[in-house]
């Protein structure tokens, strides 16, 4: 094989190796979470406003229909009706006469008068139970964590923010995830926002930004905080976001 041929073969092997190069799943999935957070809030807000408007219009329509129906069925009150009205007669409350006491509930009285039961405890057997140290919890694998957060995203996509929050609590408290905590935090911000807990979502987003000021993922959190502030100002011009 000539030098040129061997060089070409080496080059092909190097390029083939380069095709196997990948970024870490952590980086990829954390970026995905930040993108969805930065984008999802705006669209959720628009959708909520649209639904709120639709529901308000429907409520007004129903109210009008009900009022019109009541006007048609409710008879007018005449002057004769008003003049013949008398208050209802009511029974006076029973009050104890002198020397009489209201009976206490018998069960309570029995309990107070009867002697306390004597509880005889068996003598503790002589045995020493050694508390076994808890077995160390195996650390979740990256695929476990990715799977757990995939289920969170599925819940959010199905507009089930409550379920998403429950799954995130499981990620923290049961799985004890450590590799995708940034992504989990951003997903929690989104879930809190979608569940109506906007204040909590903003506070969490701000804490994430403070803890990760230079991270590109913080851009998604900043965009969310800015949008939330703008929406709060638009809704209530005389007050600011807490």
């Amino acid at each position: 094989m000539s030098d040129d041929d061997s060089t070409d073969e080496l080059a092909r092997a190097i390029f083939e190796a380069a095709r196997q190069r990948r970024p870490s799943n952590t980086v990829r999935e954390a970026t995905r979470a930040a993108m969805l957070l930065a984008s999802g809030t705006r669209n959720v807000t628009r959708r909520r406003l649209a639904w709120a408007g639709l529901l308000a219009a429907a409520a007004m329509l129903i109210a009008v229909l009900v009022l019109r129906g009541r006007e048609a069925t409710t008879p007018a009150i005449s002057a004769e009706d008003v003049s013949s009205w008398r208050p209802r007669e009511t029974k006076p409350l029973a009050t104890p006469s002198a020397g009489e006491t209201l009976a206490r509930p018998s069960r309570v009285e029995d309990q107070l008068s009867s002697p306390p039961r004597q509880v005889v405890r068996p003598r503790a057997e002589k045995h020493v139970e050694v508390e076994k140290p808890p077995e160390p919890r195996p650390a979740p694998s990256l695929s476990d964590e990715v799977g757990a957060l995939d289920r969170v995203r599925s819940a959010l996509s199905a507009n089930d923010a409550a379920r998403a929050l429950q799954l995130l609590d499981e990620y923290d408290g049961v799985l004890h995830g450590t590799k995708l905590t940034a992504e989990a935090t951003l997903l929690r911000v989104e879930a809190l926002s979608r569940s109506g807990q906007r204040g909590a979502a903003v506070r969490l987003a701000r804490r994430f930004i403070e803890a990760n000021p230079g991270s590109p993922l913080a851009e998604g959190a900043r965009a969310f905080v800015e949008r939330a502030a703008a929406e709060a100002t638009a809704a209530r011009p005389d007050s600011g976001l807490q």
Partner: protein
Amino acid sequence: MIVRGRYRHSLLVARAGLLFKGLAPAGVDGREARLNALITDHFDFIWRQLRHQGLAPHDADDAAQQVFMIATQKLDDITPGAERSFLYGTALRVGANRRRAAKRRIADGDDRTLDALVSPAAPPDAETELRRAWSLLDELLASLPGELSRVLALAEVEELKVSDIAALEGIPVGTAASRLRRAREEFGRLLRASRHKNPFGQDSG
């Protein structure tokens, strides 16, 4: 632009129709699907281009995230089907900024915690060879002018056609072909001079 207006109009029509049907607006799900597709289809590609531009693994991670956050903000302005072009152009600008700000070039082979392998269960020898190959490739690409290293990586690593390379680089097809020819010649010369660093089956250095 007209395309943008048409796209938004179609989204509004779709949303209105689905609202009256009592279903969730399609626009929201469509946007999420588009963002997911951006990541799934292009994240690895963009990340590799940033690495080929000379960014260290952690810089490439940050730069890639920055590229995709920019795409998220400008998603409505990206013509459907032109996502890769947009991302590539953004990656060139972000990568150039990062390189200017970087305090060291890629020469560190200790990127095992950041560069993932397709087959994590590969035997240690295969993993070592892969990492040495990556390191050598980075070193050789860094020795080429940027315009040559980019077209070479796009052709040889990403296996793109010259016409696609020209579209990404924003250059005529003839210019792309000429640069690729020069890049291959120069890369071959550099590789021959670095035969002692063959990462496959030999100790480097």
